[in-house]
């Protein structure tokens, strides 16, 4: 019986999982984060790295995405994105 349950749980994960179902927390800057970060990766990259990064760490991550990975984010939007990540996915 237990194995049946496990099989069904596995099946349920397979059926329901989908990147489009990822929902970030509401807050100022969410639109920018969704638009820019999802160009290259799914937004669960943010969720799994929470809540343990402080503002300096999120600044370093966003900086890496811009300067190393080439994310098209200007300085103004960079600030908005860092503030959103710190407020909603930062260390409490």
């Amino acid at each position, binding site marked *: *019986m237990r194995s*049946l*349950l*496990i099989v*069904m*749980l*596995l*099946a*349920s*994960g*397979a059926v*329901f*999982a*989908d*990147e489009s*179902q*990822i*929902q970030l*927390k509401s807050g100022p800057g969410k639109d920018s984060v969704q638009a820019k970060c999802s*160009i*290259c*990766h*799914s937004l*669960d*990259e943010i*969720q*799994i*790295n*929470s*809540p*343990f*990064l402080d503002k300096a*760490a999120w600044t370093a*991550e966003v900086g890496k995405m811009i300067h*190393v*990975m*080439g*994310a*098209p984010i200007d300085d103004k939007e960079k600030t908005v994105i860092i503030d959103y990540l710190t407020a909603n*996915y930062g260390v409490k």
Partner: protein
Amino acid sequence: MTDRRRFLKNMAGLTVMGSAGILLPRTGFGAVPGDNPDLASGTREASVLDALPGKKPLIKRTFRAPCYETPVNYFNEVFTPNDAFFVRYHLSNIPPVTAQDWRLRIGGESIDKTFELTFADLTNPKNFEHVEIAAVCQCSGNRRGLNIPHVAGVEWAYGAMGNAMWKGVRLRDVLAKAGIKKDALEVVLNGTDRGVLDKTPDFVKSLPMYRALDENTIIAFEMNGQPLPFWNGYPARLVVPGWTATYWTKHISDISVVSKPFDGFWMKTAYRIPQGKFPIVARFISQETEVNTPITEMVVNSLITNIHDGQHFRPGQPVEVKGLAWDAGYGIQMVEVSIDGGRSWRDAELSKDYGRFSWRQWGFRFKPEKKGSYGIMAKATNRSGNTQTFELIRNPAGYHHNVVQKVDIVVA
């Protein structure tokens, strides 16, 4: 309770969980039964069981680039099934590839003759001898998610690894056909996957010549007797036994022999460990700096695979602890098990040896008579005398986690 009633009770629980998956945002519940409690809450909430095409449901850490880890129950087999083998990509542009269209280009300034191989050329035993080797493929960051405090990256628990029987041809045989010049310093490796944006540094790695030319470094086209699954590098990938999986280039398409240190982001900046912190023998001298060095070989490690925290046993009931132990290929000397939280240790029994790059299964039986909690621990030692740590060796990217595990069972 009858089986029927138990079934209904379980089904009720399942329905709640199933509907939660549909109706609620994925933040808000731990979606993988039994996921590791030491992971960050955000990691547990965002993880789900999900199946990539051709794969069994694995623990999805991120959808894109796909990072899926193998649930621990699969590690009770010595060879990890292909359809349950972990998946790890860095970049999200992963073009489909067929054996028919695939080409392997051999080039670089330190070879005599540039050439190209088709899949038929590569796999024709008249061109290159076929070899088979059992080897552990483990992500450098396996167990990163268990770092306390947590560090940024893909937050893996125990399953960013697998063991397989790899079949292919030696990299050195292929390079010999190209002719290697005297000034050769590194072999640069690239696969067909790349970034979405042109500006994103392609995932390109390099190996020192001694490791590229090692008889155990192969270009593999079979895994456990089958073609490689797409997500594990079809139609051919590099296999570097003993070294972490960052060098095991998937969908390998370009191999260059060069005379200068390769300075791409994924060598120069990423996959670095601090100098002097780990008991590492294999060096990558042309890439070293004063402060850090590329990660190279795996550290000695073990995993308990068949019991879990909080599991109940009856007094007098035999408990069989099973697990795995592996290192960089020096060979496992012994595995010691403690049932009293590390106060005393006894030798586990090692199972069949599938070669020094394979992991080794082990087992330990005991019969607890007294009621209470038993802290089960396992610690592997290799033939160089290196063993696991009890305290995390902290490093910025959370590599080489080989902290001795503790599983608390209850006898009542």
